[in-house]
């Protein structure tokens, strides 16, 4: 039986909506094992993106814990949290969230570069550039390395975002509706990339509202009104 990589315990989150508080997540307990491909499905507003943000430490829960490799994220210092976001997890957003001023190669290299001083980069930059070029090739972007995000199609942008998420070889890949902004065929291309990554042993948690996408995963967690229903 493989070990648990990520676990939540009684995870709750609410947002203030005027005078009232809207409970988005209510006592969520999930566990994701190493190498697993898990989808979180549910209707719009069910809290699946919020859950993913909490797993990626992009937001803070009201109560409960997120344990990554048995370490409580709420106990981490801000620099340790930065390190977690930078190299332990990779995030793929629905709207790609690339930096328009940087080209494909630079966008992919960004998380690696950001953690290096100029001198360190002289030492390790070559290694990362090689890795980035491998990812670019793997993602079918070899002719696009010097292109800016606005010169790419939606599918190509999402592939750049996947490359950026993978540059630091994270243990966990989090994807928030990665095909939600793409047409069916582009979406399938992206899903096949995720399938390949999963086959290579990458742990993936993906949020989707599309059951056809969910079928590609090992298992699905269904959220409804902030609770796990399946």
């Amino acid at each position, binding site marked *: 039986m493989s070990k648990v990589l990520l676990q939540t315990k009684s995870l709750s989150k609410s947002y203030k909506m005027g005078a009232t508080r809207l409970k988005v997540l209510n006592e969520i307990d999930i566990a994701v094992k190493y190498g697993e491909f898990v989808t979180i499905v549910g209707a719009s507003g069910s809290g699946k993106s919020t859950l993913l943000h909490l797993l990626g430490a992009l937001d803070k829960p009201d109560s409960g814990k997120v344990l990554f490799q048995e370490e409580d994220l709420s106990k981490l210092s801000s620099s340790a949290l930065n*390190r*977690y*976001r930078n190299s332990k997890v990779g995030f793929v957003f629905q709207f790609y969230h690339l*930096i328009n*001023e940087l080209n494909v190669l630079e966008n992919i290299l960004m998380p690696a*570069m*950001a953690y290096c001083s*100029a001198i360190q980069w002289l030492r390790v930059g070559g290694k990362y550039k090689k890795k980035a070029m491998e990812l670019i090739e793997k993602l079918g972007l070899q002719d696009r390395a010097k292109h800016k995000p606005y010169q790419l199609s939606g599918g190509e942008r999402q592939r750049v975002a996947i490359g950026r998420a993978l540059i630091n070889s994270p243990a966990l890949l989090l994807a928030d509706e990665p095909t939600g902004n793409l047409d069916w065929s582009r979406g399938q291309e992206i899903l096949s990339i995720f399938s390949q990554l999963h086959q290579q042993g990458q742990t993936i948690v993906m949020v989707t509202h599309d059951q056809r996408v969910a079928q590609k995963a090992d298992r699905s967690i269904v959220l409804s009104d902030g609770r796990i229903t399946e």
Partner: protein
Amino acid sequence: MFNVKLALKYFLKKPISWLATLAVAISVFVVLVVMTVMHGLVVDYINKTHATVGDVIVYSDSLVGFPYYDRLLGEIDKQNFVEAASPVIKSFAMLSVAGGNRGLGVNLVGIEASSYNQVTEFKSSLYRKIDNDKIFTPYFDSKKSGCIRGILIMNSKNYQGKFTHNPLIFEKLILTCFPLSYKGTLLKAASGIVDSKSYYVANDSDTGLASVDSSTIYIPFTDAQMLCGMDSTIKRASAIYIKIKQGESLGECVDKISQLVQRMKEQNENDKFSMLLRNVRVEDWKTYKRESIAPMEKEQAMLTALFLLIALVTVFVIFVVFFMLVHHKLRDIGILRSVGISVFKINGLFLLFATMIAIAGTTIGALGGWFFLRYINNLEGWLFREFGWQLWNRTIYDIGEIPHDIQTEVLCVIIICSLVASLLGAFFPVFNVSRRDPVKLLSVDQ
């Protein structure tokens, strides 16, 4: 490494960065030009006023003048803190051109060229550079009497809108005065009530003070004494201008000269001319010219307050520009935070970006200001030449030319303020937003 790269990309690739650079440049340009011109006007006026009267002035406010000036002058010259001293006659005259019927009221100043040029900077105001002993010698005939005319008197503007000296001038001027006795009554009666003398223009004087240059005729001291009746009964002068040695305290010198004047008053208190000494005063140049300097100093204080307001508005504009710039980049900050880049590094990135804008904007603004100020008088001349329009009419405003010398300290203050304003303008919004949870920044709709 990453910070420098991204900051450079933001700076070079974003039109909003160019707009921000332009905003900083315009702010620096405006403040530099306004401060140089307005501050220069005040300082220039005060310096030029000082240059016309020396450091300490012994004077009588009576048109009759005061006696024993030559003895007093001798005493003053003996003082070791005195560089030079010169007697001056100041009165009024009517000026007319020979053959014409135009009468113009002017201030008549009688000077001893040699000592007057030591005390004041009169010589540098003259168009024709000439030795002291020939200062009143007309161009065409050295045997005739000559006078020096303020450049704005009966002169015309050239194509650049400036009043210029005509070296080939052949103009005979008649000066008419009312000579007064030591009692203050008219010295002459009936048809000989006035004293008149003809002069040829020997030179023009441009002190840079329109009030002086538009109304003053300079003639030899002895001529003025004669025309004003100050050579009758007892010789008199209107004032003694004194220049003190460098490093001497002006206040102490005024006190010491006051003691000399007081002693002279006491020595002659039973004299029949003693009443003429009662009005004799000793003042430093600032007090003597307070009627014209005080409003300028007040104006300078007001200008300083206005400059502060301009500077405040400029700082605010820069702050707003950077605030908008940072808010324009909220999504990018969210992306950077989501890939684990620290708040500290993000702050550094935007401060670097702000520094680039500030340096570029300040450099462009300062160079633009320098270039504009360098040619501001040419530009004004061109406007006059082409459109007959002059920004500062020289007969109304007391300036020779528009001040254009940039003061190093003013420039340094402007550069520092611009850099600080830009950095603060970027720091506060970045510091504020970079601490937010990444998800909040990423959800911003841009």
